[in-house]
């Protein structure tokens, strides 16, 4: 008894010093990340806002004057509201398709794949080993007017004699769905895989049929994956310009293509920057509303 009482105060003395040092180490560890953020996010972001407020009469050669020309935003919306809305619609449809396809796939990998689980996950990621551009170009071949898909659809009369898939919204949405599916599957899998199958058994034991058990237990428990998956799909899909450009026609032009051409072809930096800002704000608002409604604020 006496010996244990004697050693106690010594241990207490050593504590405060290590605590202070640990605090300093914490701040030091934040530094690289902070520097990265300032250099590659804060500064470009500031530059983007500034550009969107430049005098639109400037050009690459003459330079731009800072005139706080808020009118740029109004011009951008008036001229490009239709590709803007189209992008949101295409992005939403592609995200929904990804969710349906991805959920089935993630569920199958998590619960039914057994020892093939890892192989199937590798297969989900495998397309990433080839370039995004090459994969989208090969879709051009698959959906081509003389390709087998169009042939088949024409024989079963789902497509008219001179009907086509390329240069239609179907092709663009299909391309978006294909390209962003892995971004949906991976977070979904991470969420579904964590669900204890005994919880599903418990739901059946408590009078829930397979469907009700899914709806009341599996689905709510996978919501974090659903939310992060849809965000990871929707955000880049809305801003995407490759799919619309390669698989669509000017009628399927998405906002990404508009911004790109404003920057590179038209050299209209202020309008391009304003469009970027509008897109960003729109997505941010939609995401906030969505996450609030899904009740998964802790993800943000």
């Amino acid at each position: 008894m006496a010996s244990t009482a004697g050693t106690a105060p010594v241990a207490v003395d050593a504590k405060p010093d290590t605590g202070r040092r640990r605090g300093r180490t914490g701040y030091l560890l934040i530094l690289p990340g902070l520097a990265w953020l300032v250099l590659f996010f804060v500064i470009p972001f500031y530059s983007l806002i500034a550009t969107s407020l430049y005098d639109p009469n400037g050009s690459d050669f003459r330079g731009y004057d800072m005139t706080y020309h808020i009118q740029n935003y109004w011009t951008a919306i008036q001229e490009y509201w239709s590709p803007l809305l189209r992008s949101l619609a295409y992005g939403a449809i592609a995200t929904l398709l990804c969710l349906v396809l991805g959920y089935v796939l993630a569920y199958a990998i998590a619960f039914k794949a057994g020892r093939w689980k890892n192989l199937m996950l590798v297969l989900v990621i495998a397309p990433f080993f080839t370039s995004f551009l090459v994969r989208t170009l090969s879709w051009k071949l698959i959906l081509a007017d003389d390709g087998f898909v169009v042939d088949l659809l024409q024989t079963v009369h789902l497509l008219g004699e001179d009907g086509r898939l390329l240069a239609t919204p179907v092709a663009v949405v299909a391309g978006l769905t294909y390209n962003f599916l892995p971004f949906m599957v991976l977070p979904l899998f991470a969420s579904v895989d964590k669900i204890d199958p005994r919880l599903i058994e418990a739901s059946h034991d408590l009078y829930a049929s397979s469907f009700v058990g899914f709806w009341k237990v599996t689905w709510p428990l996978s919501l974090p994956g659903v939310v992060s998956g849809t965000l990871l799909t929707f955000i880049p899909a809305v801003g995407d310009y490759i799919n619309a450009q390669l698989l669509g026609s000017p009628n399927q032009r998405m906002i990404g293509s508009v911004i790109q051409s404003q920057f590179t072809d038209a050299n209209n930096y202020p309008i391009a920057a304003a469009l970027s800002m509008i897109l960003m704000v729109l997505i941010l608002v939609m995401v906030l509303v969505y996450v609030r409604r899904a009740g998964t604020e802790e993800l943000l």
Partner: protein
Amino acid sequence: MSQVAETASPPAGDTTYDGLRLRGVTKSFGAFTAVRDLDLDVPRGSFFALLGPSGCGKTTTLRMVAGLETPTSGSITLAGDDITYAKPYRRPVNTVFQNYALFPHLDIHENIAFGLKRRKVADVDTRVREMLDLVELETQARKRPAQLSGGQQQRVALARALINEPEVLLLDEPLGALDLKLRRAMQIELKRIQTEVGLTFVHVTHDQEEAMTMADTVAVMNRGVIEQMGAPEELYENPHTTFVANFLGQSNLVEGAIKGRGGDVVTVDMHGIDVSIPAARSHAAGDRGWIGIRPEKVLIGDPGEDLDAPGNSIPGGVVTDVSFVGVSTQYLVRMPWGQELQVFQQNTGHRRLYRTGEAVELSWRPEYAFLLDISQDASAGAEQED
């Protein structure tokens, strides 16, 4: 091999039996047979324990009753209805799962209400509050399972199953994750609730003490078959197999040659000493057997001392180990034939303590001994994983 409770065993095919009945139930997973040709009758309103080491098939049996596994062959009836292939959500059976399996996304109130809501029962809230009251968790209704302690989660799991008033409540090692003190408290609690609600409880456990304190009928299961079934004291006092003798408490098993079966007594030659065993406690065929005696039934005394045990008296022992555990003293005594026997002596103060190396004499009353078949492994069930 299968046994049916001696109390109630109407013939198979009788559809009027109001309890849970398993007939010839076998479950195989590939080449492995988890449960083999099992017959079981669980009377309505009883507290029934399925006791056995891990991997003995007890959980598989429970899952078949719950509908979470389908038997390879055989039938399960409940109050005369065949439920062998019924979906789990279509049978009046609820389970308290080993890890509780509480829904983490629902609060305590919603967890308990889950079953009632699926069946569209009226007045869910009132009944949930009554149930919360029964398990003494009224103040925790709006908490999530993760915010509760192990014992509280256990009570939620119990309430979530009980509220449905199932014909049979299945408990799959429900106290396994609790510490010893809490486990004892919950055992008493469970027993109280069972008496209060009067439902049939089927309790799966590997803890023999738990099974014996709680259940009114215990079935000891080993390698997919039921070794013996009966009231706890019956199983303990008169085990029929070496597995039961070792798994329920401890036993001294000494090899002996059966000399004669006369009247209601069997006489056995135990290494040159004749001991007698009541015929009702003899479960050995052939001319050899294991003489079994519980350590607390063995008396220890000085050589030649007149111990209170008319009958079997075995001289020539030497104390090889003494463990003083407070309420009792546990001795290991080496017998002339080289085997060490266990002896528990109550510390009543009337007997003196023996020291290692002292010569002693052992004795026991014949009516406490039992005789088991020599073909069985004397160490079966002795090593408990706990």
